[in-house]
């Protein structure tokens, strides 16, 4: 074995030959700088596809949405008149619906998701943590359209036959504006519920990650001072992780705002602003999904593109804020 390894002896360079040492430098190193340059250029080029793609997307949606935006001006976002025949387009109900359904989803999902994350990262014994973490992660793997199918064929009938009558007749909240009107199955409430299920794994995953970044010393100090296990979480761990958890929640918000298929299938798709959660509504994404293929005139297409542009801007802002918050917490925790 050791016979193969000849001792390396640096050959003496011929005097005066700065670069030309052909005899001892293997041939492929001659081309090294060229090959490396090509490689570097190629990887940089492929990496630049990402910003290029984003620019193209932005250009496409704004360029295509421009006619509608200039035609209707600011009224595009405040008017609720959406009439393809007369050529009047105002996206207010879709914007309202997007915000309300997403907020409702956050309201339902956040306590659950944070609870799950706390349970999994702090309290669960190993044998129970693995399967529950796996199942929660699985929620994120289910395609949107499968949620929609389940939502429209199982959840919506359940809400119509059990939840709505319960709220109206048993709790007598029928006159309360949030729950007023005829009990449709497909509704803002249904959309909020399905969205809550869909964003829960995202919020919970980020929260777990952030909790993991909280230093051990923080927990030990609280316990040493005589805190119970819950007081340790509530007074020492959660305040430390707060901004990261908020980041996770906002990340979930970003998902909820852009979620399309499941919402389209359960929200009822009615272009109207209604205070009641039990009434059908619309979201920006479902408006596009529903009408785009049938849009006949250019102004209609342009209006839908403008809605898409709005969605583009909003989700970018939301994501940037969320990532910044998560990054800040993870960095703060990583150092200690």
């Amino acid at each position, binding site marked *: 074995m050791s016979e193969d390894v000849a001792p390396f002896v640096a050959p003496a360079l011929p005097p005066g030959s700065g670069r030309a040492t052909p005899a001892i430098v293997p041939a492929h190193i001659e081309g090294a700088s060229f090959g490396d340059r090509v490689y570097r250029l190629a990887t940089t080029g492929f990496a630049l596809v990402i910003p290029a793609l984003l620019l193209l997307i932005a250009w496409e949606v704004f360029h295509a949405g421009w006619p509608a935006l200039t035609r209707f001006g600011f009224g595009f976002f405040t008017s609720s008149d959406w009439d393809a025949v007369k050529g009047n387009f105002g996206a207010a109900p879709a914007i309202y619906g997007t915000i309300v359904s997403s907020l409702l989803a956050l309201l339902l999902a956040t306590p659950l998701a944070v609870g799950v994350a706390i349970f999994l990262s702090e309290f669960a014994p190993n044998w129970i943590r693995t399967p529950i973490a796996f199942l*929660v992660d699985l929620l994120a793997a289910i395609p949107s359209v499968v949620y929609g199918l*389940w939502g429209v064929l199982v959840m919506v009938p359940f809400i119509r036959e059990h939840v709505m009558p319960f709220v109206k007749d048993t709790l007598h909240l029928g006159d309360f504006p949030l729950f007023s009107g005829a009990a449709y199955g497909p509704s803002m409430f249904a959309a909020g519920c399905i969205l809550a299920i869909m964003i829960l794994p995202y919020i919970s995953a980020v929260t777990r990650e952030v909790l993991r970044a909280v230093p051990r010393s923080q927990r030990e100090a609280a316990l040493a001072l005589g805190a*119970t296990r*819950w007081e340790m979480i509530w007074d020492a761990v959660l305040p430390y992780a707060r901004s990261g958890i908020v980041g996770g929640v906002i990340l979930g918000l970003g998902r909820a705002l852009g979620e399309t298929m499941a919402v389209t299938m359960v929200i009822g798709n009615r272009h109207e602003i209604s205070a009641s959660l039990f009434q059908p509504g619309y979201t920006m994404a479902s408006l596009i999904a529903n009408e785009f293929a049938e849009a006949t005139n250019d102004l209609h297409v342009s209006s839908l593109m403008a809605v898409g542009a709005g969605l583009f801007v909003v989700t*970018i802002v939301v994501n940037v804020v969320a990532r910044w918050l998560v990054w800040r917490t993870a960095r703060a925790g990583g150092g200690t």
Partner: protein
Amino acid sequence: MTAPSFTAQRRAVWRSYRDQLAANTARTLGRRRLFSRIMIALTFIAALVAILPLLLILWHLIRQGAATVGWQFFTRMPKPAGEAGGGMANAIVGTGIVVAIASVIGLPIGIFAGLYLAEQRTARLATAIRFLSDVLNGLPSIVLGIFAWGMLVRPFKHYSALAGGMALAAMMIPLVTRATEEMIRLVPVSMREAALALGYTKWRTSLSIVLRTAAPGIVTGALIAVARIAGETAPLIFTAFGNSFWSVSPTQPIAALPMQIYNYATSPYDDWHAQAWAGALVLLGLVLVISVAARFATRSRAGLGSD
């Protein structure tokens, strides 16, 4: 000054103090412990509530879909409304084709972009691209759908499988990029140094040593990305559009499983609902099989990042 010595009186005061405190503590501690237990139980209940919808969805899918999923479902074409039976052969093949197109475009771009990010870790451009890749990942899929429509459908005036594949590729690129970057970072620097010391050029080191070492992890990332896009509907409705007939041509409208489920689920026919359940069961099965395969690919790689 002399150190204060405890007189009997003082000692008694302190004792009563201490006893009172202890009594108080015992009383409140019991309450605090109980509260702690209740809250911990509540987090456990939250976990149960969170997985309840998952179990319900799985249960309904299996109960409603299993009866319809058979040999026929994979080999037959869809039947018109009102006729029972039929299958989704065209949609299953269509999903395969659209995902293949997306992978052919998205994988090389994603892998090379990931290589770039991992190797130029600190360059300002790399930081910017890493951030933009996250931004692209956060875009709603419907926006990618209308984008692809504007770029690839409107100019050519007809829907095509190619446009659908491109829209999905745009979704796939940031996923593959970040997965590749992470996996390449796990490769020990010593391997790269060893290769360079043996006289490998930088690019050969990157491709035949580093990339190859990270390959199982990258395969995992790629599979997860495929599982993710295979279930997407929104980018396809205005690009691939759907097709009720057999078509494998990339320039023609093509059927896809998620779109077919969407169309059938929103129809008023019970037969089509049954087909939608079956389609959803198949789709979910497909997605889960790919994800589990991805997990196994990672497991065989375990230990790579340990040093």
